[in-house]
């Protein structure tokens, strides 16, 4: 088991958001977590990544058998957990390549691998940029500085391709993308699909799942997973809306 979440509860600013989430993700799988606004999808992603202002009040999470919640954020990242941010932040004056090289080398150092030098890194990043159809000017720009929404999301996926995580959690990576950008981003994610890796997609929209076909679909609402199924659950949700699931719980 790559990721095992048991009865996870968390609160933000004194408010309980996650009220007992259970989820198991095996290597090789793609899971989609869907749900209405405010259902706790992003909170789940942030808690798994180790954001400090989210307080875990109960439950356990293991990552490859290790207690994930006891690790600081940077160690989770180095262990192979990647979060694609919903709103990637701008870091003015810090070069894209510089940040990503530092990230890769931090991870390699933890794994006991030699650091990648600037020359090899440039070759690597250029190859990945080709996959994401990004222009060379990206190399000289600051981290997300002045990027359009679509460029920011593409940059997230680019970082993921360079870091090659075991588990990628993509938080609404599809939001704000036009159809062409959506295709590119999906292609990037699909290129990482591999029996040794897993992807958790957090999304509002079924549309993304036409391009990245999930093995499992879960509906998160009111801080709990109310329903799980396969690809067809997403299609049914699109037809019947979230009220259908929430209604089912009451009934």
């Amino acid at each position, binding site marked *: 088991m790559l990721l095992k979440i048991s009865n996870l509860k968390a609160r933000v600013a004194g408010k309980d958001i996650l009220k007992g989430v259970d989820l198991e993700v095996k290597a090789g799988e793609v899971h989609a977590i869907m749900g209405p606004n405010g259902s706790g999808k992003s909170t789940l992603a942030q808690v798994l*990544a180790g954001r400090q*202002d989210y307080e875990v009040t109960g439950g356990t999470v293991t990552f490859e058998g290790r207690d994930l919640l006891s690790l600081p954020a*940077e160690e989770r990242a180095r262990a192979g957990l990647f979060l694609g941010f919903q709103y990637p932040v701008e870091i003015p*004056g810090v070069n894209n390549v510089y*940040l*990503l090289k530092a*990230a890769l080398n*931090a991870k390699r150092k933890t794994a006991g691998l030699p650091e990648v030098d600037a020359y090899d890194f440039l070759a690597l990043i250029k190859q990945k940029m080709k996959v994401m159809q990004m222009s060379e000017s990206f190399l000289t720009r*600051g981290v997300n500085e002045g990027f359009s929404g679509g460029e920011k999301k593409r940059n997230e996926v680019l970082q993921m391709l360079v870091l090659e995580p075991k588990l990628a959690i993509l938080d609404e990576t599809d939001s704000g993308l036009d159809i062409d950008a959506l295709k590119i981003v999906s292609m990037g994610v699909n290129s990482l699909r591999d029996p040794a890796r897993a992807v958790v997609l957090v999304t509002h929209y079924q549309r993304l799942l036409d391009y990245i076909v999930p093995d499992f679909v879960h509906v998160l609402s009111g801080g709990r997973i109310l329903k799980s199924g396969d690809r067809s659950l997403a299609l049914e949700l699109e037809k019947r809306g979230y009220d259908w699931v929430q209604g089912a719980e009451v009934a």
Partner: protein
Amino acid sequence: MSSKTQDVEALLNQKYRHGFITDIESDSLPPGLDEDVVTAISRKKNEPRFLLDWRLQAFRHWQTMTEPSWAHVHYKPIDYQDIVYYSAPRAPANAPKSLDEVDPKLLATYAKLGIPLHERARLAGVAVDAVFDSVSVATTFKDKLGKAGVIFCSFSDAVRNHPELVERYLGTVVPTGDNFFAALNSAVFSDGSFVYVPPGVRCPMELSTYFRINAAKTGQFERTLIIAAEGASVSYLEGCTAPMRDENQLHAAVVELVALDDARIKYSTVQNWYPGDENGRGGIFNFVTKRGECRGRNSKISWTQVETGSAITWKYPSCVLKGDDSVGEFYSVAVANNYQQADTGTKMIHIGRNTKSTIVSKGISAGHASNVYRGLVKILPSAEGARNFTQCDSLLMGPSCGAHTFPYMEVKNPTATVEHEASTSKIGEDQLFYCLQRGISAEDAVNMIVSGFCKVVFKELPMEFAVEAQNLLSVSLEGAVG
């Protein structure tokens, strides 16, 4: 969060690395200040009459003045009668003619500071005029500069060898009565640096002075005068460190720059005076007057400063843009940590036609520190077509620090263009988490974010010092995130 905060404190509490004291016999005057002391300083230095008169005039003016209180800084009143106004290392009767004659203990001190004197200077292509307490100890590269006609020497040497230049330019940019601290400096200044670049000469190397305060209870009052004649250009860097002391030490320097027609002066400062301990005890009071005058047409003066030290910083490197088409620039990074207080900025006085000024100020506050940007852009009626661009950004680290911006603008010519941009940001939890999530340690992340914030200013530093400034910044702020 709490464990993170402790790490931050541990990192912030790093010992000041330059806090050692050199054991050398000093030739000092007793503490206190009156006309006899001013006269004694002048005598000790065998100064010509005009300079003694000038000092006495400044002293008399100073006695009528009161210490300014408008700055956003707080400190116990300074007892000006408890300060030693002259202290010189005891040396052979005559000044050393080469480094071999210099007291080896002094050279060891410089080695600890990492000053590139001696061969390291040669390799780096830097000429150093090292000021130890009040007397200039060694000046390198005089020959090479001499061939180009550039005069680069201690202020005392300039008084001795080029009195006509000193008399002609001294006090013409910062008059003796300009302000309380400038008047004090004019009365008691003991040494400093002097640069004259003759017409049409591009100074063949970066000039650099490291100042260092050593004797206890000694105030340091250097005076720097740089003149770039018609079509000349020069780049000058000063670096400052001071040993650790419990009491506060006063540093009241004056720097005057004069740029004639088509001349360029670039003045860069990396200031790392002792900032006091983590409880705000000790540290340098850095009350400095720096001003440049673009006296000639199409001249340019550019100030770049990286201020990480001092308990209190009070300085406003300014440009008086007299010549038509002259340009003034001010690029600043000011860091205040623990209980440091910084009140710094610039004045751009536009007098000539089509004069241009640029102000870029980056203030970083951490711990309980207060960081103030105070700037004046003044456009006189004569300054047809003048332009100014000002950008002030503040970065806050943690909940207990403060940042303030006081921009003053006086525009008396309707054709002028004045732009002002300002921002205050907390070092982003979001930015930090983004880096952590990519596997980068908190310490590296903060260095990265702060360096990015300061990048536009560092770009203005001479290359070899940009690296030094960046290192200094990361030592000052390592992990400073709450």
